[in-house]
């Protein structure tokens, strides 16, 4: 099953390791793709959500009077807590009491709701999609997270490797058979030919070549780590690689750039 199918058929939970892996971008890109697939039930779901008892409480103007009434009932408790605060110097007790009093309705049947939440999270209709990047440390944390999820029976259905540098045209080229110095010279000659006349300074050519080789080195390490990570997950979990774009993806056009990498050839355009 591809990531496209996983996301189309499930309720998606995006989970991530440490910061900087692009979780917001990935979640936004998935959301945008979903919106463009005519998932028309979204408004009805929102309506259902707003019609729930707890939400209606929030929007009813007379509710504040009810909460005031509840506070009066708790006057004795608050009196005790105030004395405790004075004795211990801990000033949060009363606030905590007020918070629970005010939010009392939310905690009614809390346990049942937690059970229901677990049921949903563990259900066949839910897919966890892990977003990570190919740095050693981040990937190590992602491995730990996926292990914990497996232990909890949570269904990891896809992995997005974000900010990768493995989209190289040089792998498998004549460069592979070269020594480091030979590779540098070969690249330098090709760069000089591409730049043509007027000629450029050797330092500019060197800067371009060294920069390319640095990214290639980075990409080799990433490719090795991602392959090992995917092997550990097993072949049933689809993995996709999104390259490290050289600009911020902060608008719809930017997010659309990720779709071919996330959802295959042509991105969402493939569905017309």
């Amino acid at each position: 099953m591809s990531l496209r199918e996983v996301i189309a058929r499930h309720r998606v939970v995006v989970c991530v390791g440490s910061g900087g892996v692009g979780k917001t971008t990935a979640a936004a890109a998935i959301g945008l793709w979903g919106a463009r697939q005519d998932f028309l039930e979204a408004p009805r779901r929102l309506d259902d959500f707003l019609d729930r008892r707890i939400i209606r409480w929030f929007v009813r103007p007379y509710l504040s009077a009810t909460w005031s009434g509840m506070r009066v009932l708790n006057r004795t408790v608050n009196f005790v807590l105030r004395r405790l605060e004075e004795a211990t110097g801990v000033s949060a007790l009363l606030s905590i009491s007020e918070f629970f009093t005010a939010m009392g309705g939310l905690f009614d049947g809390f346990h049942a709701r937690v059970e229901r939440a677990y049921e949903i999270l563990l259900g066949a209709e839910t897919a966890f999609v892990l977003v990570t990047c190919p740095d050693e440390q981040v990937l190590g944390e992602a491995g730990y997270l996926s292990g914990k999820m497996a232990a909890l029976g949570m269904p990891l259905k896809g992995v997005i490797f974000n900010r990768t540098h493995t989209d190289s045209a040089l792998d498998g080229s004549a460069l592979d058979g070269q020594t480091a110095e030979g590779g540098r010279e070969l690249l330098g000659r090709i760069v000089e030919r591409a730049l043509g006349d007027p000629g450029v300074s050797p330092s500019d050519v060197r800067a371009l070549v060294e920069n390319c080789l640095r990214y290639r080195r980075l990409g080799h390490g990433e490719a090795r780590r991602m392959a090992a990570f995917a092997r550990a997950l097993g072949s049933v979990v689809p993995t996709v690689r999104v390259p490290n774009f050289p600009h911020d993806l902060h608008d719809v056009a930017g997010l659309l750039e990720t779709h071919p990498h996330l959802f295959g050839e042509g991105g969402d355009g493939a569905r017309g």
Partner: protein
Amino acid sequence: MPVTETIETYTSLIQTLGLPVGMLVVNRFHPGTADTDLVERLRRGAGELPGIEALVADEVARRAAEENGWAAINRDQLERLRAAVPLPTLVLPAIFAEEFGAQEVARLSWLLEVECAAGREGRGRVQYEEAGT
């Protein structure tokens, strides 16, 4: 470089907790590579080369554009940080290694020492160059 989170953390440390924060270390800074016009010229020239050479030259141009793109992003982020976090700021470069091991840690450690010494002597930031180890 999570700039917003760094600024929020700095504000919390100073204002809420009253801690004496002494220095800001900005890690993985991309310094950029060749001039943008030259990179564009390379990209155009790549299309005129035969076969694999075109792919190779295009990749060199693409990686240079990537580095310059991140350099521009990092410069903006550093500017925001400097405006919001008035501390001595030490900038460490992005390290390009297949595996981040002892050699890379030693290199960052050396850069930290050099930068701190330069700051103490009032010489400002030293220039660094990615050695490509």
